[in-house]
């Protein structure tokens, strides 16, 4: 389990939506730009790590009960994405690392793979 605040700190990341959830602890991470794969998961308490910054990233998370999304490679969420995320109480985090580096850091501090 890793606190959201610790992940943000280690990744030198920015929370751009939903900053009240910083003390929540997350157990699993799943990294994908393919939403079709994300929709096959039945894991709870999951951080989605992705470089896909469009509205369907937020919709996929809404349907999959994913409450935390980390955007890598400095991808920026649009205003429309932020609005939809806030409406669904999804926390959005942005960082400048590559997906591989972000996953490596998160795994090092205790975030577990789904499979």
């Amino acid at each position, binding site marked *: 389990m890793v606190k959201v605040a610790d992940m943000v700190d280690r990744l030198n990341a920015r929370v751009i939506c939903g900053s009240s959830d910083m003390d929540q602890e997350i157990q699993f991470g799943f990294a994908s730009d393919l939403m*079709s*794969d994300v929709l096959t998961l039945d894991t709870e308490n999951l951080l989605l790590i992705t470089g896909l910054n469009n509205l369907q990233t937020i*919709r996929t998370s809404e349907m999959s009960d994913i409450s935390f999304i980390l955007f890598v490679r400095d991808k920026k969420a649009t205003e429309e994405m932020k609005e939809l995320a806030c409406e669904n109480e999804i926390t959005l985090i942005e960082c400048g690392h590559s997906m591989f580096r972000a996953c490596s850091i998160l795994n090092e501090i205790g975030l577990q793979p789904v499979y």
Partner: protein
Amino acid sequence: MEFKFAIEGGNFSKAGSASSEVKKILKQLNVNPKIIKRTVVSLYEAEVNVVAHAFEGNMNVDIDTDKIVVKIEDKGPGIPDIDQAMQEGYSTASPQVREMGFGAGMGLPNIKRNSDQMNITSKVDVGTELEIINYFG
């Protein structure tokens, strides 16, 4: 309770809005969250399919005390070979659909996995009808 939602073909900015409404309704009815998730994932996959492949469609939702029955009908190219479309990895999605994070040929198999009953019929150059039934118990 019956609800009907229109789905616009090609409009990815609205893809998922019908499934999102159904999720809100099921939450208000205090349906088991695991069943809500299974249901809305299958509806979302179906909604994205209509947006990705068809000209227009409708999602007709009928919620009873013990189950939800959803019929998604579209006007579009139809599916020539449903058995082939049910195979994981088979896809006819456009590059635009793939850019949105879909088109991996996982949609129909994932709908089947997340529904208690799934029935699909399709006519080439007419459209596709998909029925999804999930039980609350």
